[in-house]
């Protein structure tokens, strides 16, 4: 990245990069709000939506049926979305494509920042890693152990941290670092 820096971009390049970062930031906030309202962002909420439904009765493995009396208050009254396998497949493919492409564009801008190569590698990789941990965590919660729902929250947090770091450092370079335009 010796030949071009964000601070050396012409004004049009600076404006476009800034608008892209701002747009992705707004999109991330909207996505967070949607996730928080539809599913929840805590590991417990993720587990409730993703983990295989546990029997309410004492239906054991190999047992054909079981019945027990309940109070109506034991029936879920929350407008929660239950993510079953077909929806998990749909969600995975759209988010893996979408988030990886966003991570790629963020990394592309960040390539031209002035931070050191090692920091660039670590920070630029955060949104990619976050995406894989987030979506991988959904599958792990469903098919390995409900306790792995913590991965979904961790992955989302990692993506957000990566985005914030890239956006802050890039915008600093774009508008506040003093260098001569190329």
């Amino acid at each position, binding site marked *: *990245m010796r*030949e*071009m820096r964000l601070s050396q971009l012409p004004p049009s390049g600076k404006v476009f990069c800034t608008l892209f970062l701002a747009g992705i930031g707004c999109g991330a906030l909207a996505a967070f709000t*949607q996730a928080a309202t*539809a599913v929840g962002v805590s590991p417990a909420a993720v587990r409730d939506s993703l983990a*295989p*439904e546990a*029997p*309410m*009765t004492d*239906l054991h493995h190999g*047992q*054909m*049926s*079981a*019945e*027990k*009396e*309940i*109070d*109506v*208050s034991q*029936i*879920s*009254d*929350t*407008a*929660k*979305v239950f993510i*079953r396998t*077909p*929806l998990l497949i*749909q*969600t995975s*493919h*759209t988010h893996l*494509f*979408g988030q990886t*492409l966003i991570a*790629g*564009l963020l990394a*592309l801008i960040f*390539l*031209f920042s002035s931070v050191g190569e090692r920091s660039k590698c670590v920070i630029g990789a955060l949104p990619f890693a976050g995406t894989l941990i987030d979506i991988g965590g959904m599958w792990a919660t469903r098919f390995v152990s409900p306790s792995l729902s913590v991965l979904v929250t961790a992955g989302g947090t990692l993506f957000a941290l990566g985005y914030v770091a890239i956006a802050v450092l890039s915008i600093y370079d774009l508008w506040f670092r003093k260098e001569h335009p190329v």
Partner: protein
Amino acid sequence: MSMRIALLLGSTVLSGLASMPARAHITPPVVLASDREAVVRLLPAATRYFVREVRPSPAEQNAIRQQTGWNADDDFYRFYVGRTAEGALVAATVFLSEFTLHGPLRVAVAVGPDGKVTGASVVEVTEESYTWVKPVLDSGFLQRFVGRDARSAPAQTGDVGGSMPRFYADVIARLVARAATLYEVTMPPK
């Protein structure tokens, strides 16, 4: 990195974005009723509530498949059973989903002791499919299932206006038929 390489990389990523099939994206869910609301609404005469969880045997799964074409391969299915104070069965409500191109559609179906549907309710759609499901619901389509059992002919959907509302009317009809069949096969009248 030269400007030329940067532009090349940028255009490659952007062309990848542009080629993503927009139709594959699922719009956010719209929950029309919670499970509790649906159960209470569909079992109005019940004063006591029970949960009955059934695990269809291979023979039962086969019977369901032959009757509806549906693979009832979940680990178990849960019926919310409504009874009177004396313990007489009022009806049992089961929730079933189908995943369409536009996301899931989930219905609650109540089946009486005689195996006939006593009511049905759509509880979850998506923002996109809601525009097609709403006119179906507004037309009173769900009332057509009341009194039908698993062996009744499925509700006619030919008079539902528009291809997409008709598509979703068919989805709802299939789910109701599956629920009635699941009840008939796994909870036979005693």
